[in-house]
């Protein structure tokens, strides 16, 4: 039975309350402190922003002017392909990797060294080893998630797949090899469950995170399975789910088997982790090693279920979520048909509703886990894409929203990137 988070409208949800700070509903469940970044805060960006948009029918690149007011679109790239993720390499700000398949053809990856003008297919896309005779082999249905490797490891990327698998390339995406420490871990079957334990579109390995302080320190999220950590470049893994509710599970606080929808690490305070989970919004100080539910402080009429979560690039106590209706049969749409982001600026002690410029009613938007992103400007630009093909943007950290595009195909991912000057 999925959690019923309550969907009845209340005064918290009225338009007149849209900028009201919602105070902590349950102070006992959360005690995060305001975080000071552990490293020097980088200067805010000021150039053009690009939105890398992945859809069920191809990919698009939206490029802004320096004011982020006007956008020009290129694409579609790979029209008709199901593109789950397109990511820019932050190490050279020029190389794109794109994960694609079609409804009929198998999965592959494409690489561009010139921001999408030309593409080259991977010669060895992610694939599981051939099974021994008599054994059932695993098959990659699609690559779902791409993460560039550590800044010190040029050419290294990680890929997360469905069926759940972790893969690594060291040549910029041309050839991929399984991360055996995870894919062949003795607990793999227990951790990943079976086919029935995935999303309607299959089980996913996602949210691959590389610690900026240590290339060997990795995190992954699995839907389902939970959050897992490796400190030896993927040779071994341990569950990292203490404190996190799995309401659909017989044991409500199991060691693994959770459904993290989106896990984020703050780049300037890498011991601070956030996750938008199937059962709520959580934060962890890694030194404490326990997830704390900060979504309890969301208004009860909205709840704290959703897919995406995005962090402020310079403030580790600031993040955005896009709540969805997780009641009864899980419509996965904006609660009550009134879309909004919610922002916390104090690590989840309180949340503010942000809906100015968004449709006030009868807007049943769904935003998937990779489809919300932030740029590095000041104020920060926040963007999200919907399954109904709309891209919305805000130049002031969610204070006002405006339409950037509509009538696109179903959007899987939006990545905001700063372009090289």
């Amino acid at each position, binding site marked *: 039975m999925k959690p019923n988070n309550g969907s009845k409208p209340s005064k918290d949800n009225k338009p007149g309350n849209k900028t009201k700070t919602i105070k902590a509903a349950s102070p006992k469940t959360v005690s995060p402190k305001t975080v000071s970044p552990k490293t020097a805060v980088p200067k805010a960006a000021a150039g053009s922003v690009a939105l890398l948009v992945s859809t069920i029918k191809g990919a698009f690149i939206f490029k802004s002017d320096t004011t982020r007011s006007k956008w020009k679109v290129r694409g579609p790239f790979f029209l008709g392909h199901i593109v789950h993720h397109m990511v820019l390499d932050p190490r050279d700000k020029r190389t794109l990797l794109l994960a694609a398949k*079609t*409804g*009929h*053809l*198998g999965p*592959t990856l494409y690489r561009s060294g010139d921001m999408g003008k030309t593409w080259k*297919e*991977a*010669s060895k*896309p992610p*694939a*599981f*080893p*051939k*099974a021994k005779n008599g054994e059932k*082999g695993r*098959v*990659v249905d699609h690559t779902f998630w791409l993460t560039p490797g550590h800044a010190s490891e040029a050419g290294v990327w990680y890929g997360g797949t469905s069926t759940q698998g972790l893969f690594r390339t060291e040549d910029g995406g041309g050839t991929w090899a399984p991360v055996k420490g995870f894919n062949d871990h003795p607990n793999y079957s227990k951790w990943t469950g079976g086919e029935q334990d995935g999303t309607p579109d299959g089980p996913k390995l996602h949210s691959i995170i590389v610690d900026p302080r240590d290339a060997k320190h990795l995190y992954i999220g699995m839907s389902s399975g939970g959050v897992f950590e490796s400190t030896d470049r993927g040779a071994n893994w341990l569950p990292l789910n203490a404190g996190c509710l799995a309401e659909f599970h017989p044991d409500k606080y199991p060691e693994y088997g959770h459904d993290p929808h989106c896990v984020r690490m703050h780049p300037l305070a890498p011991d601070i982790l956030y996750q938008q989970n199937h059962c709520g919004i959580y934060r962890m100080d890694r030194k404490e090693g326990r997830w704390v539910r900060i979504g309890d402080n969301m208004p009860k009429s909205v709840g704290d279920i959703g897919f995406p979560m995005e962090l402020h690039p310079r403030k580790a106590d600031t993040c955005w979520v896009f709540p969805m209706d997780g009641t009864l049969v899980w419509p996965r749409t904006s609660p009550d048909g009134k879309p909004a982001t919610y922002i916390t600026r104090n690590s989840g002690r309180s949340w503010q509703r942000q809906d100015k410029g968004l449709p006030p009613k009868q807007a049943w938007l769904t935003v998937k886990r990779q489809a919300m992103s932030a740029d590095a400007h000041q104020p920060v630009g926040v963007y999200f894409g919907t399954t109904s093909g709309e891209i919305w943007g805000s130049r002031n950290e969610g204070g006002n929203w405006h339409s950037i595009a509509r009538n696109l195909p179903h959007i899987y991912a939006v990545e905001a990137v700063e372009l090289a000057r």
Partner: protein
Amino acid sequence: MKVMIPSPLYDYTGGDYEVDVDATNLAGLLAELERRYPGIRFRMVNEQDALRGHIRIFINGVAVRDMSAELNPQDEVFIVQALSGG
């Protein structure tokens, strides 16, 4: 033998929809296509050497999925994207 290629794979064959291949069985035919058009096999065959769910191959009008299916020089092979989807 003549091998008919479906349109989703024209990117690999340079637009050719009919190619001549020498092979004694289906596995050999797919290997030869891969040699000529790198990457094409994995779009049709998964890592467990099974035809993907929405790919069909017909030899002289008969559907086959067995990679050891024999081929003769006069055979006609049709690779088909199955009718599926909405």
